[in-house]
């Protein structure tokens, strides 16, 4: 094992390979507060990439309800249980990562899901357990709340799938940090399926190889956001590239949300993979749960988000989400307008901070008739 630096943990950690960061790192921000779990992202991905034989139950993108929804079944709670409670105060992570907790003979701590764990992608959907008026019918640790967690591959800086493969069949692209499985080299051992804590590598039993989210790299290469981003009804997603904290730029939308405002947080950072999909945590969920899922910055992020309406820069940047099919590497606000820019500062998209409001009177005085909203 090598020693590498994980900025999400604020410390060095053990990893199977030495630190080797790509020239650019694909990253994304998902605003969980805006997700309605319509699964349009799921369908956009499925139609584009996983409609073949052996991919029937494979969802590179999925949306699950937390806390009782999982795909595959219990993926996160099983691993949290395996890892056990870990300490993390306000400084560097004090617990063990999945690489540090690996048992003798293993490269990473993980588990293999069962076949049937993939058979019910909507398990726990909209399950919040509470019947407030009549008293809760079900007593469980998490009462009367839920939120939607949209998930793709995190294209981690320290991928556990890549570390797990004994054949080196998984690689991280130098040009954009996207993690891919070489479909010619893979022999279907499924060490990556076991190793990925997010369970975002899937075995295709018809082709005998494992497959995963490719961040729609053919689109990213021409400056367009992936399918699950541009098809998102709730406009919750924003794709781009993230810098390390010391290189963070205020005019890079991802850097601004992650590093400058610390509003968007990694999913289970304590696992140690430095995942690159960042979540704006849901503002209505108990802080303890958010800390476990998004790390110690969760409460501050919720506070920041609550103040976004009175924060023109933050509100403005959030308005860029879902506003264009293009990847927006730079941004700036000019008064009540937010501009999405390319690397050279050329305008890609222009969005008002507040959409103009048109009031349509219920009675049409000119025609002397009441208006109806029916089509």
């Amino acid at each position: 094992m090598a020693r590498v630096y994980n900025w999400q943990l604020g410390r060095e950690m053990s990893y199977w390979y030495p630190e080797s960061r790509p020239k650019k790192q694909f990253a994304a921000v998902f605003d969980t507060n805006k997700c309605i779990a319509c699964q349009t992202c799921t369908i956009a991905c499925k139609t584009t990439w996983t409609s073949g034989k052996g991919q029937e139950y494979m969802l590179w993108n999925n949306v699950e309800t937390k806390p009782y929804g999982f795909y595959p079944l219990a993926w996160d709670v099983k691993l949290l249980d395996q890892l056990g409670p870990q300490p993390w105060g306000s400084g560097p992570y004090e617990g063990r990562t999945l690489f540090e907790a690996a048992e003798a003979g293993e490269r990473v701590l993980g588990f293999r899901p069962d076949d049937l764990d993939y058979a019910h992608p909507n398990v726990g959907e909209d399950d919040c357990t509470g019947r407030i008026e009549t008293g809760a019918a079900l007593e469980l640790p998490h009462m009367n709340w839920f939120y939607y967690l949209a998930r793709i591959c995190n294209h981690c800086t320290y991928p556990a799938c890549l570390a797990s493969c004994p054949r080196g069949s998984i690689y991280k692209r130098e040009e954009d940090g996207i993690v891919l499985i070489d479909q010619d080299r893979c022999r279907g051992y499924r060490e990556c399926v076991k190793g990925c804590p997010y369970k975002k590598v899937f075995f295709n039993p018809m082709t005998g190889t494992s497959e995963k989210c490719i961040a729609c790299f053919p689109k990213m290469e021409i400056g367009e956001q992936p399918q699950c981003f541009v098809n998102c009804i709730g406009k919750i997603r924003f794709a781009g590239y993230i810098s390390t904290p010391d290189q963070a730029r205020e005019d890079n939308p991802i850097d601004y949300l992650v590093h400058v405002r610390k509003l968007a947080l990694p999913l289970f950072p304590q696992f140690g993979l430095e995942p690159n999909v960042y979540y704006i945590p849901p503002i209505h969920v108990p802080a303890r749960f958010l800390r476990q899922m998004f790390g110690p910055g969760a409460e501050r992020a919720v506070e920041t988000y609550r103040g976004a309406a009175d924060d023109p820069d933050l509100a403005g940047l959030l308005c860029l989400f879902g506003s264009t099919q293009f990847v927006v590497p730079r941004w700036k606000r000019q008064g009540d307008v937010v501009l999405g820019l390319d690397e050279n500062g050329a305008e890609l998209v222009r969005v008002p901070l507040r959409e103009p409001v048109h009031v349509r009177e219920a009675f049409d005085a000119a025609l002397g008739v009441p208006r109806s909203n029916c089509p």
Partner: protein
Amino acid sequence: MKPIVTIATWLAALLLSTSAGAEVLAVRADAAPSRPDDAAWKGAPAAAVPLVLQDMVEPRLLQPSTAEVEVRAIADGERIAFRLEWKDATRDELPGIARYSDACAVQLPASTAPDVPAPQMGEAQRPVEITYWRAFWQGAVEGREDSIQALYPNTSVDHYPFQAPSLPPGSEAQQEMARRYAPARALGNAMAGPREQPVEDLIAEGPGTTRPAPKAQSRGWGARTADGWSVVLSRPLPVDLGSGGRTQVAFAVWQGAQGEAGSRKMRSVWVPLRLAAEAGGR
């Protein structure tokens, strides 16, 4: 009682000698058998080869499973066939998301020399040749349908893109559409099928370096026995291995029900392989 004790002692001694100092002797036949139930196998001596955990490189196998493989070998002057038999309570030949295949392999050094490469998949610039059999593939060759329902009978599929009415069945356009959603097949990855043989020829130069051999020359066939598998693996005789010649051979066995795959396997060390004086032909 005394004669029985003597026979038992003799048997124990015999077993010990075969496992500790096992040698595979390849006898001569007119044709190397291609099926495990071929009568010719009765004429080949059995070597009981002990298997050890692959615990040299991560990920390792941590729980021992197959203790021993019984090996017989027959050569016909052109090819050499090995029959591997081992105990395995479960028949794991149906692929699945979390189902693993029963499998076995025979490994020979790429060049016959007294100084053999490391038995763990060879070494850099000192390759080994491997013939690898998978029960998943045996099932496919025996006619398992190439459909998800063959793996999960209750699977419901509404539509595949290659079933679009605009794509005539069997047409190149339809096949192209099917390949589009099966990248491993499109690239010709041998994992992806379709298959004509349940075996694969591999070259390796150390752990994690396995690659398909330039030519597919091996053949094989597996059959269930009362308590395990009996598998024939045949390949061309090494070019530099003549009658009476010696080299080394190693074996590996994977039990699917134990989740064994890749480096998680039971393996042997190098075992001497001797061609009977009349078994060579080159």
